C-alpha cells in the first residue's frame, strides 16, 4: 500500500497544476444556451491545442495517453483548479470515443475521433426510453433495415444535452423477438431529418435532459458499431473503460463543498439565531461525518484505480462508488439547505447557489441509475445473492 507519488509523478503534477491554473477558464460555465456550447467547445479546443485532449485515450487515436496515475493526478488538479464540468463533451470523451476505439471500424475511428478531441462534435447518449428506465434491456425504439440503411422509429428519454450534440450513441431494437440479442448500437446524427428534440425541465429549474423522437430516421448501416443485434455487448464493452479517475474530480468538488460549509458554519448563526452554526452540535455532527464520508469516497476511488493499475478485471466496485457518491452528495446538500434556514428559499442567497444544488442532488439517486437498481447489482454481483423469482 502506498500513497507516495514518485518524483516523475510529482513533476507531472507540477506541470499539470501550472497549466491548469493558467488555462482553466476564469469565467463561470454558462448553464445553458449557445453560450454554453461555445464555452465547452472553446475549452475542449484549448485542451486539445495544448495536448491535453482525451486524457485517457491512447496516443495512437490522438489522445493524451496518460497512465492511470497521471489521469488521477490530472483529475485531482483539474478539480483543485476549478476546472469546469466537461459538459457537451462528457459523453464523447468518456463513453462514445472509448466505444469506437474498442469496437469501431477503422473508418469510424478516423472520421469521428479527431472531431471529438478538437472540440468540434459533442455527443449525447440515446439509451433510456420512457418504458425502459431501470430495465434498459426492454427498450423498444425500433430500427428496420432498408437497403443500406437503418430506419429508426421511436423515442428516447433522459438524453443529456441532446439539443447541443452533433452525434448520438443510439441503441435500437433490431430484433423484436429477442431481449438482449436484438439490440444494435449505431451512431446517430442529430441533424438527420425526422429527429425531434424536446428539452425536459427539471425541478432545479434547468433542462438537464431531453426527449428525442425518431420518425423514419434513416441512418446508414456503416454507422453500426459492432454487428447488427450485437449492441448490448458493445454497450457493455466500455463499462470497464472508466477506471474511476474521472469520479475523483467530482469527489474533490464534494470535499470542497463540505469545507465551504464548515467555513460558513463558523460565520453564520445556527438555528437559535445566536451562536455560530458550528457550535450547534447537530450540525457539527453532520459536518464531521460528511468530512469522513468524502474522505472515504476518495479512498474508495483510489482503491478502484489501484485495481485498474494492476490490470484486474473491473468488478462492480464502480457501482459501490456511484451509490455512495450520490447518496453522500444528497446528504451534503441537504445539510447546506438546512444550514441556510429560511434563506434556502432564496435562490441567490448563497454565492454557491446551494439551493439549486440541493434540488439537483435529489435527482442524483435516480438519473444515471437508481439507488434501488444499484443495490440490486451490489447484492447480486458483488455479494452473489440470488435474484428473486
Amino acid at each position: 500500500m502506498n500513497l507516495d507519488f514518485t518524483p516523475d509523478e510529482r513533476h507531472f503534477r507540477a506541470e499539470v497544476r501550472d497549466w491548469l491554473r493558467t488555462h482553466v477558464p476564469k469565467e463561470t460555465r454558462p448553464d445553458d444556451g449557445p453560450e454554453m456550447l461555445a464555452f465547452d467547445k472553446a475549452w475542449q479546443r484549448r485542451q486539445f491545442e495544448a495536448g491535453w485532449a482525451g486524457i485517457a485515450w491512447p496516443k495512437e487515436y490522438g489522445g493524451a495517453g496518460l497512465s492511470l496515475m497521471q489521469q488521477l493526478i490530472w483529475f485531482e488538479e483539474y478539480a483543485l483548479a476549478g476546472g469546469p464540468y466537461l459538459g457537451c463533451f462528457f459523453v464523447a470523451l468518456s463513453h462514445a470515443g472509448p466505444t469506437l476505439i474498442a469496437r469501431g471500424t477503422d473508418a469510424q475511428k478516423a472520421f469521428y475521433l479527431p472531431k471529438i478531441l478538437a472540440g468540434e462534435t459533442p455527443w449525447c447518449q440515446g439509451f433510456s426510453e420512457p418504458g425502459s428506465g431501470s430495465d434498459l434491456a426492454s427498450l423498444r425504439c425500433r430500427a428496420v433495415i432498408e437497403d443500406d440503411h437503418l430506419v429508426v422509429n421511436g423515442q428516447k428519454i433522459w438524453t443529456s444535452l441532446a439539443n447541443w450534440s452533433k452525434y448520438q450513441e443510439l441503441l435500437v431494437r433490431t430484433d423484436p423477438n429477442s431481449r438482449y440479442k436484438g439490440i444494435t448500437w449505431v451512431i446517430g446524427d442529430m441533424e438527420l431529418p425526422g429527429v425531434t428534440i424536446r428539452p425536459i425541465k427539471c425541478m432545479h429549474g434547468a433542462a438537464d435532459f431531453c426527449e428525442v423522437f425518431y420518425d423514419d430516421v434513416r441512418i446508414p448501416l456503416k454507422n453500426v458499431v459492432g454487428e447488427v443485434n450485437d449492441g448490448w455487448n458493445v454497450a457493455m464493452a466500455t463499462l470497464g473503460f472508466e477506471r474511476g479517475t474521472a469520479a475523483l474530480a467530482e469527489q474533490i468538488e464534494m470535499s470542497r463543498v463540505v469545507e465551504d460549509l464548515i467555513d460558513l458554519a463558523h460565520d453564520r448563526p445556527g438555528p437559535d439565531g445566536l451562536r455560530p452554526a458550528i457550535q450547534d452540535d447537530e450540525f457539527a455532527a453532520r459536518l464531521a461525518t460528511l468530512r469522513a464520508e468524502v474522505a472515504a469516497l476518495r479512498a474508495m476511488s483510489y482503491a478502484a484505480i489501484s485495481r485498474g493499475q494492476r490490470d484486474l478485471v473491473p468488478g462492480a466496485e464502480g457501482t459501490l462508488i456511484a451509490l455512495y457518491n450520490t447518496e453522500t452528495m444528497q446528504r451534503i446538500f441537504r445539510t447546506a439547505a438546512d444550514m441556510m434556514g429560511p434563506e434556502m428559499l432564496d435562490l441567490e442567497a448563497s454565492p454557491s447557489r446551494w439551493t439549486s444544488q440541493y434540488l439537483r442532488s435529489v435527482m442524483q439517486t435516480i438519473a444515471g441509475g437508481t439507488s434501488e437498481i444499484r443495490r440490486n447489482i451490489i447484492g447480486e454481483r458483488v455479494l452473489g445473492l440470488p435474484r428473486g423469482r
Partner: protein
Amino acid sequence: MVDLLVSTEQQQIIDSVVDFLSVELPLARLRPDGNNRPDSALWPIMGELGWFMTSLTEAQGGLGLSAVEEALLFRQLGRHLLTPNVLASAIGARVAAAAGVDELAAAIASGQQPVALGNAVGRVSIGARISGRFHLFDAAGMPLLLLTDGVGNAALVATASLSLLPRPSAVDAMSLHEARLDAVAPLALAGPDLGAHVTLRLLAASMLAGVCEQTRDLATDYAKLRVQFGQPIGAFQAIKHKCADLALRADAVGHLVNFASIRVANRAEDAVFQATAAKLLGAQYALINAKETIQIHGGIGFTTECDAHHFLKRAHVYDLIGGGYRQQQRFLLEEPAPGEEPVA
C-alpha cells in the same frame, strides 16, 4: 370520550373543500404551463367559503367552529399545496379581532383584505414597534402582512408602508420578497395570550400532514401503474416498503395533528406541547415523504412534468414558517410534559 375520527359533519366540510380545491386549485396550476391565477384573485372566494373565519365566534362574524375543523380544512389546503398566506389570513383575522379592530377583522375574514405571511429571517422584534428581516411569499396584491415571532407576538402591518425587495424564489409559482423593518408601527398587535404562534404551528402542521398524505397517495398510485421488469414497481419490496413508510408517516402525523387540534380547541394545558410536536414531526416526515415520492417516481419524478417536486419545495416552506424543525425541537423541550388526565 375519546374519538379521534372525523364526524359526519366534519367529513361534509372536508368534502366541500376538496370539491372546491380540485376545481379551482388543482395541483396542475403549479406546472410551468399551469393557469396560475394570482392568489389575491381567489381571496374573496376563499373568504366567502369561510376559510378565514372558521375559528372566529359568531359574535365576531365567524363560523364558530373550532381549531379542529380549522385544522381539517388546512390539511386539505396542504394537500393542494396552497400558498402559506392562507395561514396569514386565518391568523390575521384573529389578531385584528383580539386587538379590537373589528372592521379590519371582518375585512380579513371575508377575504376582502388579503394578508400575506411575513416569515422572520433571523431574530426579529415584534411589539409596538417592529424591527427585523422578513420573507414575504406571494405578496403581490396583498395589502396586509402578518408578522409573528416564536413566543406568541403577532402583528398586522400595511404592506404598502414597506419597501419590498424581490428575490429569486426557489419555489415554483411562489414569489419571494424580502422586507427589512425598522421600528414600524403595526395596524394591530396581539400578545402571547392569543396564542398566534400556537395556531400557526398547528395549522402549518396540518398542512404538512396534508403533504404526507398526498405524497403517500401520489407515490402509491404511481407504484401500481408503472411497470418495469414485467410487473408494477409496487410489487418490488424496495418500492413497497418505501410506500409503507410513507403511509406510516402520514398516519402518525395525521393523528397527532388531530389530537393537537382538539387540545388547542380546548385550550388544554398541553396545547402548546402538542401543536409544537405536530409541527416538528410533520415537517421532518413531510420532507422525507416528498423526497421518497420523487425517488419512487424515478426519472419523471424530478421533472416539472410531474407534481412530486412541488411537495418537497413547499414542505420546506411550511417547515420554515414560524421557525424550522430545529427551532421547534428547542421550543418543544422548553414545554413541560403533558400532565395526568383529570379525574372527577
